[in-house]
Structures are given as structure tokens and as C-alpha cells.
């Protein structure tokens, strides 16, 4: 691998270009018209136009991506996350074109993308999956026996279902018969189909995932877990590592189950196994396999902060056919890391997307603060792509310290020109329930109170607005003078740390 085309945009494109530079690989930015002047386009060693702004005609077009790679003399493609990263057509097309694909083989991607097949594969590998009954025998006695086998509480679902109709949570076998009849009646009315399925009802589910890496020589290691339970409408908002309140035995079982899963799938590359963790009535925790994300993930930095392993560099090494060079015993998770995703959206207005020019973009800096960003001051935030502008990742010796560091970093972040979720992230990080780590995947959808800002306008704000209003035209001149007299400590970014 000598020259790599980045088939993505924004912060992940910047991340990949940097990893290439450190690995001695040249980088090619493939950009859409909306990104012709974006930081990632300028940062790469070469750049090539992919197509018009709409993703379907640029970042999502396999043939254009392959043609751009050929034309720019690249011998490898990194898909990043999102866009084409989990489309098996891309590794297929790379193979046909003689290009290295930085990711798992197409066949593995297909096998893991098929939910039913993946679940069967995991059961064979001894990885726990959500227990259920999907059989055609619909006799009351069969269903009751299946429910007893699954263990209560059990969820009765209409086979033809959706929208919660024909759905019942049953807490013990005595109630089962009556609830089954009710659910059948409801499903018959709603869908004209009374067939039922059973599934274990996951109480207070938490989303915990395990990062792994597998080389082409048969070695697989895990890089411990990430907690991603804070989601709003299935979109992750913050992630952290280690997971909060996770039983150490469950943690270690999840990690070894992940290694078994990767081996069973014949995986090559880095990937993530997603699990649901339930809290049972007796206080014990259980974990269940959900799916494998066969790509780099947005939240990979929290794992990098805790393990010190550069996951993108590892991807490049694996793709080049080199061995991992890291044994499982060499992987240690140290301290605590939290990531907060900065989105261009308005939390007070149902998270409506926000676009415009970034008049002010001043990310925080300091020890233990990392900002992965795809924009800069003056950037135009366009309506064409995902609303994520940046990620603030903090690391500290324990969760309480990481939590304080995140709050401080968010307070130091100045963004003007588009609306962002920074105030929302701040209310989350100030919430005592979040601080205690006592949340599940439903937390943010229940806690709508965190979306509204309350309180009055601080005097500092009146002072700043008054001074700006009075001296705005000459402010830039004043700024130049101030800089000449004394360099601003934050203008220098984190360079003082290296002094």
C-alpha cells in the first residue's frame, strides 16, 4: 500500500489522512462539490473530485469511487464509517479492480450483514443471543413451554407485527395463558394474523460493544468495551470506556465471546461486536449479541484513549497483510474516556438540522482533551450530509475526573453561526443520574427535560455583547494589537504541553 484513497468526508477523512501520513502512505481525498474546500480535501497529499454534492452521486457511488482511485493512482481504499463502509459491493469492486480494501472481506461482510445467519453463527460459536421462539407450532402448550424455557419476563410479539400492537410483556407463567389470548386477539384484528413469537424481554437494556482486531494470519485480539447507552432515537450521543456499572465477570465473558465471534466469522480487519446488557430482577447482568459492525466506528477514539492503540493505523497494517504485533496480554485499558458528539442541530427545536457558516469555531484544548473535527472557522455547514461536526474526547484517571473534564471542555467550546447540541451535552453531563452512571438506552428519550435551557442571562453575556456592539468594527485591529503584545495562551492550541 503506497497511496490510499479516502472514500469518505469530514472528521473521519481527516483522521484517516493523518494515520496514512504516520504510516508512510500517501493519501488521496475524494471530495464532492460541497467539500471542494473542506479541511480534509486540503489536508490530503492529493485530491480528486468524485461528483456533485448529493451523496448518491458522490460518496455513495461505488463506480465513481473506484474510478477516482484508479485515476489518482491509488492502490487502496479506506471507506471510513457510514456511506459505503458496510456495502459488500465496495470490497467486491476493489478486488475486481486490483485495489486493497481496508476492511473485512466481502464474504464476511455479507455473512454478518444477514441478521438471521449471523445469529445462527453466533449460537454455534457459543455467543449468547437474545433467547426466543420463532416456531410454526402455535399451540398454547408449546408456546407456554417455550416461554418457561426462555425465562420471565417474556415478550409476546405478533409475527406480522409492528407498532407495538399485539405486544405483551408477561412476568410469570401463571399470567402467560391469558396474555397470549389477548395478544392473539389484538394481532388478529390489527394484522389478520394471530401467529405469535416469543422473545426474552430485556429489562433496562444497555448498549455495550467490544472492539476487536483480527489479522490475516489468524490472530484475534479484543480492545475492551465501550458503553453506548446514551442514544436519542437510536443515534448515539455520548460513548465511554470502560462501561459503567458492568460486572467484571460479564465484561470478561463479553470480551472472550467477541474473540470467538470474530474467529467463527473468519473476520479480517477491525470491527465491533454489539451487545445488549440486561439488568435482571435479581440484580445480575446478562449479555446478548446484537450484531457486528464490520467497519471503523465513530466512537473508536475512546478505546484509543484507554488502550493507547491507534485503531486506524492497525487497520492499515492489517490491510497490508501484516500481523497484529500486539498480543492480548499487551492490551490494557487505563483510566476512563468519554466522547461527546457535536451535532449541528437545535435541541430546543426538536433537534432540527442547522446549516450555515461557522463564524466562530474555537474547539477546546488542554491535557486529556482530543477534538476530532472536520470543520474549521469559516466552514460552510451544508445540508447534504450527516450533522456531526466534531467529537470531543476526554481522558482522565477515573470516570468522575473524565466527567469533570468533559464538562470543562464543553464550556470552553465556542461555536457561532450554526446551532449545536453543546448546551444539550452540557445538561446531560451535569445531570446527577448521568454522573452516577445509572442509565439505560431509554434514558435520553425519557429525559426530554434535558433539551430545554433554563435560567436567566448572566451578566458576563451582557458585558460581552455591550463591548462587542460598541467596538465591533475595530475589534479585529484590537485583536491584532493584543496578539502582538502577548500571545494568547489558547491561540497556540496545545503546543505548550510539548514545551
Amino acid at each position, binding site marked *: 500500500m503506497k497511496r490510499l484513497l479516502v472514500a469518505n468526508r469530514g472528521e473521519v477523512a481527516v483522521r484517516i489522512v493523518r494515520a496514512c501520513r504516520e504510516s508512510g502512505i500517501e493519501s488521496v481525498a475524494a471530495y464532492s462539490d460541497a467539500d471542494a474546500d473542506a479541511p480534509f480535501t486540503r489536508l490530503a497529499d492529493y485530491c480528486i473530485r468524485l461528483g456533485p454534492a*448529493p451523496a448518491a452521486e458522490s460518496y455513495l457511488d461505488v463506480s465513481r469511487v473506484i474510478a477516482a482511485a484508479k485515476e489518482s493512482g491509488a492502490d487502496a481504499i479506506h471507506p471510513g464509517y457510514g456511506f459505503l463502509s458496510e456495502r459488500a459491493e465496495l470490497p467486491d469492486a476493489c478486488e475486481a479492480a486490483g485495489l486493497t480494501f481496508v476492511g473485512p472481506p466481502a464474504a464476511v461482510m455479507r455473512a454478518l450483514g444477514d441478521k438471521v445467519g449471523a445469529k445462527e453463527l453466533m449460537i454455534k460459536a457459543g455467543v449468547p443471543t437474545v433467547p426466543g421462539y420463532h416456531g410454526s407450532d402455535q399451540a398454547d402448550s408449546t408456546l407456554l413451554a417455550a416461554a418457561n424455557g426462555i425465562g420471565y419476563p417474556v415478550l409476546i410479539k405478533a409475527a406480522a407485527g409492528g407498532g407495538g400492537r399485539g405486544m405483551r410483556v408477561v412476568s410469570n407463567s401463571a399470567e402467560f395463558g391469558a396474555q397470549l389470548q389477548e395478544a392473539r386477539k389484538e394481532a388478529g384484528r390489527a394484522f389478520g394474523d394471530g401467529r405469535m413469537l416469543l422473545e426474552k424481554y430485556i429489562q433496562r437494556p444497555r448498549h455495550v460493544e467490544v472492539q476487536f482486531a483480527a489479522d490475516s494470519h489468524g490472530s484475534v485480539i479484543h480492545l475492551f468495551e465501550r458503553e453506548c447507552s446514551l442514544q436519542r432515537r437510536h443515534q448515539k450521543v455520548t460513548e465511554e470506556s470502560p462501561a459503567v456499572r458492568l460486572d467484571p465477570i460479564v465484561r470478561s465473558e463479553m470480551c472472550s465471546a467477541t474473540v470467538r465471534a470474530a474467529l467463527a466469522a473468519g473476520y479480517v480487519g477491525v470491527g465491533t461486536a454489539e451487545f445488549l446488557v440486561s439488568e435482571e430482577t435479581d440484580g445480575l447482568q446478562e449479555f446478548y449479541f446484537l450484531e457486528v459492525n464490520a467497519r471503523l466506528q465513530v466512537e473508536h477514539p475512546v478505546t484509543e484513549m484507554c488502550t493507547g492503540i491507534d485503531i486506524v493505523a492497525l487497520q492499515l497494517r492489517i490491510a497490508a497483510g501484516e500481523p497484529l504485533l500486539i498480543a492480548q496480554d499487551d492490551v490494557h485499558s487505563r483510566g476512563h474516556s468519554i466522547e461527546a458528539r457535536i451535532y*449541528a*442541530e437545535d435541541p430546543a427545536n426538536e433537534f*432540527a*438540522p*442547522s*446549516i*450555515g457558516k461557522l*463564524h*466562530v469555531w*474555537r474547539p477546546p484544548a488542554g491535557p486529556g482533551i482530543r477534538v476530532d473535527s472536520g470543520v474549521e*472557522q469559516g466552514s460552510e455547514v451544508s*445540508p*447534504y*450530509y*450527516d*450533522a456531526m461536526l466534531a467529537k470531543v474526547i476526554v481522558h482522565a484517571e477515573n470516570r468522575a475526573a473524565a466527567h469533570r473534564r468533559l464538562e470543562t471542555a*464543553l*464550556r*470552553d*467550546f*465556542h*461555536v*457561532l*453561526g450554526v*446551532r449545536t447540541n*453543546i*448546551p444539550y451535552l*452540557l445538561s446531560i453531563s451535569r445531570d446527577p443520574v448521568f454522573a452516577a452512571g445509572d442509565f439505560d438506552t431509554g434514558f435520553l428519550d425519557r429525559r426530554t427535560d434535558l433539551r430545554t*435551557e433554563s435560567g*436567566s*442571562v*448572566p*451578566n*458576563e*453575556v*451582557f*458585558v*460581552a*455583547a*455591550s*463591548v*462587542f*456592539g*460598541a*467596538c*465591533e468594527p475595530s*475589534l*479585529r485591529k*484590537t*485583536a491584532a494589537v*493584543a*496578539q502582538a503584545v*502577548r500571545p*494568547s495562551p*489558547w*491561540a497556540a492550541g496545545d503546543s505548550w504541553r510539548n514545551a
Partner: protein
Amino acid sequence: MRSEYEILGERVHLGAEMDGDEWRVDLPTGEAVRVKLIAAQGSVMQLRVTSDGEQARQFEAAVAEVDGELNVSFEGRVYRFGQPNRSEAFPRASSSSGALHAPMLGVVTDVAVGVGDRVAQGDRILVLEAMKVIATVEAPFAGRVTSLCVAKGDRVAAGTLVAVIEASREEASN
């Protein structure tokens, strides 16, 4: 020099008078403070505030003018000072008006009707998309499309007039 703004539903007067190398600012509370601009990087300012008999306090804030509003970023929140009496609201489609406006900014990804088409109440007129968020503009009542102001691929701002529907006589009498 004092200007009137509106913030969180309240009218406030903002102004500062130069006094030597400091500014004199009258706060809405009536208190007067002395302010020194100690450094500025573009629009990010560091200010030192002295009120009578107290230790000077320092803080940082960013200020910029965005869409005619004065926006101040301070400690993770953004405060927006608007011009009083400036109407922010744009007219939404209602049963009395057939003027249809974009409910949010976005790119027009589909136009489902043509000028002259007859539409029923709730029929899809066009679809907008921004950052994976999809919004559909529907006919507020039955009628005829008399005007289409956008085409597929257009970028529109929130509140842009996108189409006009006229209630046709036979539909109106229903």
C-alpha cells in the same frame, strides 16, 4: 451609544462608553461596571470586569452577528440578542392560505406534483431533506396547484415559499 435588543422575551438596552483604556457598561440590573478587553482572537474575547470594591473578574466569551442577531457564546451556551419588533415567524400553511412554506432548511429531493395538478388534502407536494432529516410538505386542503417555486435539487431556507395551492370551487364546496 445604546441599542435596544430582545432576549428571552425581554427588552434590554446594551451599550458601552469608552473611558480611557476601559469600557463603562451599564448592566440591565442598573449596576455599572468597568470592562477591559484584555485579549481577542477574532471574535473570541477575554474581558476583565471590575465593579466597585470588588476583585476584578476575568472571563472569555465569543460574539458574532448571525442572521441579524447578536450571538454570544459563554460557558457552553449561546445567547441570542434579536432586534425588537423583527418578525421571526414565517407564515405556515393553514386552511385559510394555500401558500406552502418549507418547514425547515434543506434540499428538495422530490417534487410530487406539477402546476395545474389537482390534489387532495394530505397529498404529498414535495420532500425536503437536510442532514438525513426528511420533511414532507403536504396539501393543507383539496385544491389545485397554481404555482411551484422550487425544483428538485434546489436548496431552500426555512420559511421559503415552495408552492401555492388554490382551493378549487368544487372542493371548497364539499
